């Protein structure tokens, strides 16, 4: 197991290196790095100082090494617009996004998996057919459109829930969290619902397919013969057997949730990193774009790593196979 972890860690390191090279080539080599690092209305002195500071007169490979060095120190440059370090800016917005993503993934899991298991357990019942029809909609309808309809229905017409901004937050470790106050929860409800629909649909489909397959297996036949109730079988055997593909998808989906949060955050003016990247693209705040990209890549690599390790924990075959 330890060997496997080390192997995966080294792999992740290489992926990060490749990503940083890609971003470097994309922004520094193809584009003009002076435009990226220096605001267009900076004075001549500042321009020259920055060019010297970042070593833009050096050959490209040296620049890349310097870029890597700055990355390792967490120096991602400063935002043109807000004039604060990018890392600090992104990190200050990250909790809001994480909270939103986590809420929607949890809703997706706790609603989606039971519904999917039911739909797989009773595939012919009208309830299951309704569940599946809704999941098709969840798959194909674009997120931003669902968001609009949610706002229209619950915020404009019914006036039940607020849409836009974050509401009251509670400070813990210097970070504001919404889910601890009633007001914050009300603000969280619509964006989280909006963001979870895709995951919900996907988890329903996956757990339904898994359940249908496993219900026909010998495991279930013998469990039935042993006199276990259907509910116990579903909970103890089926849930456990379908859990491996679910964890993989769940983990990968957590990453894409962070990405799709871009859309949801824009619609609901949720002050997270997604809104930050859109704002920085429209205001041409390039250091923020670069910093965001690097951080998201890092997040993705980390998530993939965690998923792989969880996979190994859940599947004993993988664990033993790798130990040799």
């Amino acid at each position, binding site marked *: 197991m330890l060997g496997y972890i080390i192997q995966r860690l080294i792999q992740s390191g290489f992926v990060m290196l490749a990503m940083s090279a890609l971003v470097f080539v994309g922004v520094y080599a193809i584009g003009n790095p002076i435009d990226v690092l220096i605001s267009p209305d900076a004075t001549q002195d500042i321009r020259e100082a920055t060019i010297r500071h970042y070593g833009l007169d050096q050959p490209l490979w040296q620049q890349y090494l310097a870029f890597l060095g700055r990355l390792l120190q967490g120096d991602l440059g400063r935002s043109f617009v807000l004039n604060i370090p990018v890392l600090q800016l992104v990190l200050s917005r990250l909790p809001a996004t994480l909270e939103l993503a986590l809420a929607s993934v949890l809703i997706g899991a706790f609603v989606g998996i039971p519904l999917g298991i039911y739909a797989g357990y009773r595939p012919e019942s009208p309830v299951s057919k309704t569940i599946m029809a809704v999941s098709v909609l969840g798959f194909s309808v*674009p997120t*931003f459109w669902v968001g609009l309809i949610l706002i229209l229905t619950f915020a*404009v017409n019914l006036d039940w829930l607020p849409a836009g901004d974050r509401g009251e937050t509670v400070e813990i470790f210097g970070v504001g969290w919404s889910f601890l106050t009633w007001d914050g929860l009300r603000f969280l409800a619509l964006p989280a619902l909006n963001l979870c629909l895709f995951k919900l649909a996907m988890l329903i489909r996956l757990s339904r397919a898994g359940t249908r397959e496993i219900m026909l297996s010998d495991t279930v036949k013998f469990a039935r013969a042993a006199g276990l109730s259907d509910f116990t079988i579903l909970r103890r055997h089926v849930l456990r057997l379908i859990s491996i593909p679910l964890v993989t998808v769940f983990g990968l989906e957590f990453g894409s949730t962070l990405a799709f949060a871009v*859309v949801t955050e824009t619609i609901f003016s949720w002050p997270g990193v997604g809104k930050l*990247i859109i704002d920085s693209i429209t205001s041409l705040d390039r250091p923020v774009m670069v910093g965001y990209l690097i951080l998201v890549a890092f997040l993705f690599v980390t998530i993939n790593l965690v998923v792989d390790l969880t996979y190994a924990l859940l599947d004993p075959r993988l664990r033993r196979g790798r130990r040799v």
Partner: protein
Amino acid sequence: MAQFWREYRENWVATLALAVVILIVTAALAAPLITPQDPYDLANLNLRDARRPPGFIGSGGYVHWLGTDAQGRDLFSAILYGLRISLQMGIAAGAVAFGIGTALGIMAANIGGKLEQGIMRLVDLQLSFPAILLALVLVAVLGQGRVPLIIALVTAQYAYFARTAYGAATAERQKDYIEAARATPLPGRSIVLRHLLPNCLPPLIVVGTVQIANAISLEATLSFLGLGLPPTEPSLGMLIANGFQYMMSGRTWISVYPGIALIILIVAINIVGDQLRDQFNPRLRR
């Protein structure tokens, strides 16, 4: 082919969906003929007609069945023209991604070795990275316009085709008919093009259908975020975005009707794709 069609018609939902797709495509193609107004011709627009509800008779003397938007565009015309752009983008991006992805996938399966490793690593890496983020970044770097948008959509989507083509090609390569073809003096190129490729097509067609719907949806999302085409030629996403700010004040039709058009198109294409998948899948055949 005839039998395929007969089987297809057995599913009335899928048949209806296909009819809807054909209807929408025809309406979008014929948009200049059936719309009362050219929504891109600024001379035609009258701000006095702006934000009028459905059924309003504007200064042009005709009825705005679906109302007008903030620039005084007739929404029915704007939707049909928007559908044109969405379909153009979706089909263009889908076709290019199909070509590039299939070529890469089949190349990887046939040549093997380092190239196979390299291509499939890249594809897997990209599949784990959300398409929308990639498209967002590319549009931000390349700027706005049709070509950057198509490049962004293709980059975000070719990996699905590559993976499917690779899977299909590796499975087909182990079958006897390829073995037999190899025994003949045919050049490798014609084995791949004449025998391997046609047999890999069914799953690729399914992916292609769904990916066109995804491209349309992605384009609409990017346009909604203000990163799509220039505002003088609004696609469906931008029409929806423009209407969004009036939604709170109760002028919902500006966003809702383009949205409905978009959803109907995407859902219909997806249903057609689902049916094709079921029909191409030999395991579900009895």
